[in-house]
């Protein structure tokens, strides 16, 4: 057995997840399609009037991004749980923290990052004023990262359960709310010409907190789910 350092293992986990995601194209494209389609539903439901959509656009994009992220999180640990890789990871002598970090980061690369990069397109179709585009992308980059961590806690808690998906949503949505509040507020502030850095700074702070604390909860939850 070749002993591997923690960094090497993290990289290996990351690479494996990314390769798997690229092979199964649906894993990363489904949330994106969901994002696009649901955003398109809003004009159909509300009406095409430009002013109205422009006012609602930041909130709409953020809520839909949140839902897409939540949907993508469901499968975060399930594949590894089903083929017993998760058990192996938990049994390994390496600390759980970096492994969880690697998995969550890999998940974000495949869900939150594409979503954020796609957001200017959706901003355009929802008539979001151009002043808000850059802040929209930055807020989504930061926010979806936090959402990935929070979602991972829920995914770890429900991975061993049948019908875990819906339960995951119930658990995770209240915890998503601060991210939603500050994310959409940042975009709205940018559009209104007001200070957008404070909400962005809060998002960054939330991300730092998530980076520090979430892997502890995720690791604990994984042990509970695998042990049961």
């Amino acid at each position, binding site marked *: 057995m070749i002993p591997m350092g923690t960094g090497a293992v993290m990289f290996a986990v990351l690479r494996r997840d990314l390769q798997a995601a690229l092979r199964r194209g649906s894993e990363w494209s489904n949330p994106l399609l969901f994002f696009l389609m649901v955003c398109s539903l809003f004009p159909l439901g509300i009406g095409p009037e430009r002013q109205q959509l422009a006012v609602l656009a930041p909130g709409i994009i953020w809520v839909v991004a949140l839902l897409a992220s939540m949907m993508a999180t469901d499968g975060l640990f399930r594949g590894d749980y089903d083929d017993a890789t998760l058990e192996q990871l938990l049994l390994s002598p390496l600390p759980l923290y970096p492994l969880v970090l690697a998995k969550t980061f890999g998940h974000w690369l495949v869900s939150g990052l594409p979503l954020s990069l796609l957001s200017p397109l959706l901003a355009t179709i929802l008539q979001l004023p151009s002043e808000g585009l850059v802040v929209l992308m930055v807020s989504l980059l930061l926010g979806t990262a936090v959402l990935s961590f929070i979602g991972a806690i829920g995914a770890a808690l429900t991975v061993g359960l049948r019908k875990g998906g819906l*339960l995951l949503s119930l658990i995770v949505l209240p915890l998503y*709310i601060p991210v939603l*509040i500050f994310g959409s507020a940042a975009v709205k502030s940018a559009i209104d010409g007001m200070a957008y850095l404070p909400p962005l700074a809060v998002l960054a702070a939330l991300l730092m907190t998530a980076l520090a604390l979430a892997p502890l909860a995720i690791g604990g*939850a994984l042990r509970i789910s695998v042990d049961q």
Partner: protein
Amino acid sequence: MANWQWFHKWGSPRWFYQFSGRLLPWLAIPALLLLVGGCVWGLAFVPADFKQGNSFRIIYIHVPAAAVAMGGYMLMATAAAVHLIWRMKLAAIVMKSAAPIGAALTFLALLTGAVWGKPTWGTWWVWDARITSVLILFFLYLGLIALHQAFENRDAAARACAVLAIVGAVNIPIIYWSVEWWYSLHQPASIKFVGESTIHPTMLRPLMATLSGMYLFFGWVLLLFVRAEIIEREKNTRWVQALVSGK
């Protein structure tokens, strides 16, 4: 060590059952007196509010329900931490028992809050910071209860809910702060929830009564739930069977 003996004694379901039995009347009677007395006082013996009229009297139920619902969650999270760190079975029972009580009180806070809103602001629902925070607290409670029911193994359920309760408790200040901030962004200048500063002391006293009464009530009902759970879990032990046959 003598220091930790009391801690482990508390963890023994049998000792706790006997101890709590003696405690019950000391919680129940003051709770009922304070609740009923405080309500009667607030309903009939306090003058109506200048701006809101008589509908403000709902405060004597709404505020205690919301406060104890929040306090209950923190108690649940503390029990969760105790369970995870020291593997104390009793802590898991307290956590499991507190959840439905807290959820019921949160629901009551939302209901009374909505009913209060109608004569005061004209709508059944106002998205102000406090009500929105209580609504999110309700969702947190429901998520916990749902998670507990989803597990077949009781120990796994307790540990999973313990993790979620702690995560929720850590998030509650963040959620509360962000909702306050959100509301201050969107708040129209004229609408203001009745601030503590505008409450006259005569209006405040019955509130202290119902608030204390509600805390005691929570403690009482929590003990009742915990005792029932203890009996059920320990039903195969001699002391429980002796207790049940002896009665």
